[in-house]
């Protein structure tokens, strides 16, 4: 069974958001990342990774007018086999979106898709930093 271990939200101010989840819910800051298409702070409750995101491009965000968007953006499943999962996704009406990362074995690597409604989700083999099933 795939494991739902990643929720990503777009925020206006990552640092302020990180402090909110630290102060209110005692979540831990487990990592951060800067990339060409955006930046992230990763939070965790020890099981689930909560990504606080800023996107720099509509293409990376997968939405129009991403500059004015804040909200819950996507979620991710950790799976054992990316190729088999992609086949199942496409057989069931999902569409490949893009890969985020270069090495499928790396933590935080995401293969992004849209479901039949166009909703963005991603799958990862090694999982996300801060989760219970991460493959280091």
């Amino acid at each position: 069974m795939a494991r739902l271990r990643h929720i990503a939200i777009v925020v206006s101010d990552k640092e302020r958001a990180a402090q909110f989840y630290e102060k209110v819910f005692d979540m831990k800051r487990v990592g951060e990342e800067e990339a060409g298409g955006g930046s992230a702070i990763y939070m965790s409750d020890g099981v689930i990774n909560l990504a606080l995101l800023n996107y720099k491009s509509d293409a990376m965000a997968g939405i129009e007018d991403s500059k004015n968007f804040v909200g819950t953006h996507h979620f991710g499943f950790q799976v054992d086999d990316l190729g088999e999962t992609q086949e199942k996704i496409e057989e069931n009406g999902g569409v490949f979106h893009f890969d985020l990362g270069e090495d499928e074995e790396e933590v935080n690597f995401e293969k992004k898709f849209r479901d039949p409604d166009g909703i963005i989700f991603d799958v990862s083999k090694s999982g996300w930093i801060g989760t219970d099933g991460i493959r280091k």
Partner: protein
Amino acid sequence: MRGRCGRQAGTLTSGESLGRKPGEGRVAAARLTHAAICVSALERAAKFCENVFDIKRVGDESFGTGSAVYMSDGVMNLALLNFKSDRTAGIEDRKNFVGTHHFGIQVDGLAEAQRLIGENGGTFHFDFGTKE
């Protein structure tokens, strides 16, 4: 949105074994256990999740302002939603909205959590359900 019965069915208190020592003034052992997406067809979305990810259908519910099918991987509850009102959805033009809508954090003390949320700049939206 909180599934009054369905959410409970497939959700384990996954954060309880973390052995954390919460900081003073923070919600003890808060656990991310719920993600909710708005879909155009509940049944089609449930079958997609079952067929692709092998996650289980653990409940469904119809309420005045919407309906839901609840899926679970045994730890996280994934709610598939159709809202019938913009107010419940909390967004304008919800008829045309599909996408990831909100997420949920299980806490031990709702009042304490609400106090801390308010103190840190969050605002109350509404209660869903009749019992805490």
